[in-house]
């Protein structure tokens, strides 16, 4: 299991890009993410609000599902994210880093909330769908 973003891009040229896009379904918002930040940090950095807990990979509150793309999972408690779960696309957004462009399927449990005006005014990263 990769715990950090691998250097050398695993021999894959598409991984050499500096930023990836993360499409959030079904809200229809696409944000950008650097390889250094977690998916959770990228979403919060876009000015959106989303539910999360311990931010340590222990509680599982920030769990999300990937529709397409690839993430480095980081350190996650096996009690909240099993290997089978990972195979089915689940990941903990507080630990995962994008390795490619991603499409993520948010559920009601993620409690995605629209951008707040004061974050939109600041140098945010949200883009129109």
């Amino acid at each position, binding site marked *: 299991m990769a715990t950090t973003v691998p250097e050398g891009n695993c021999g894959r040229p598409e991984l050499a890009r500096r930023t990836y896009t993360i499409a959030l379904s079904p809200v229809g918002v696409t944000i950008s993410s650097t390889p250094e930040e977690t998916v959770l940090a990228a979403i919060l950095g876009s000015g959106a609000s989303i539910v999360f807990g*311990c931010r340590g990979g*222990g509680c599982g509150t920030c769990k999300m599902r990937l529709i397409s793309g690839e993430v480095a999972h980081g350190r996650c408690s096996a009690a909240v994210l099993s290997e089978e779960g990972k195979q089915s696309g689940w990941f903990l957004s507080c630990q995962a880093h994008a390795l490619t462009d991603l499409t993520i399927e948010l559920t009601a449990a993620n409690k995605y909330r629209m951008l707040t005006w004061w974050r939109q005014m600041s140098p945010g990263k949200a883009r129109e769908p």
Partner: protein
Amino acid sequence: MPYRISRLGLVEIRSLDLDRDLDYYLNVLGLQLTAREGKTAYMKGWDERHAYSFALTESDRAGMVRMAFRTVDPEDLDYYENRLKEFGVRYDVIPEDYRRGRALRFAAPSGHTVELYNEMEYTGNMLPTVNPAPWPEGLRGIAPPRLDHTLVTAPEPQKAIEFFQTVLEFRLSEMLVAPDGTTIAAWLWQRPAPHDLAIVPGKPGGFHHAAFVVDSADALFRAADVLAMHKARIDYGPGRHGITRGTTIYFFDPSGNRLETFGGYTAYQMDPDCRAIRWTQDQIGPAVFYYSQELNETFLSVYT
């Protein structure tokens, strides 16, 4: 009824990365390292006089391994062994553990591994026993003097609460009560402080937090400063609980286990005949977070 348990003597929790988390426990929380033995690190607060009170073990998950209570006298261990037999509780006798003597180990109805023991190596605290200063120099981080209590989750809290009350003779200091009279959560004590153990609804074996003493308002705000300076994950606080009246900061270790600085200096002391304080369910907000008067999103849902 005499007191037979002197304190919550040990909490052991799991770490997803022992090297990383040990650095946090020693330099941000500021516990004292007793020893690292394989995948487990044994620690304690600077004012604790036995070998350790907190253990961190590397694992593939976060959460609690066990909690252990120290009896007042060696005979109290026999007393409790008889009670476990009397109530038909299955237990194992653990002849010895790291720098610790005989223990009784059993599963509580909450799903937690609980131990009772009396003997642990007496190491003294970090001060001399002759003409000591009030505190040692050279402490790092928050540097709490000692472990205070733990809060755990149970799928049927009332069953777990009754177990600790009936079999282990914990007393009830406060409880949260549903409109139909059901106990939703309880704060339980043995030493004359508001709680050694608390139980709230949640998954079996769940670990909500372990709390370490901060003993003044000054220490409370200094602790918050230390956490923020290290960009630690603060969950709530500084604030105050309605229940116990203690001051609080909730924060997470790097593996996501919740910890607390508990300011028992604002709390009451118990007498054996103190009667339990009741909080009604509609007042759960101020019961838990007195100043904000409402639960945050994480209190009842985020734990390991």
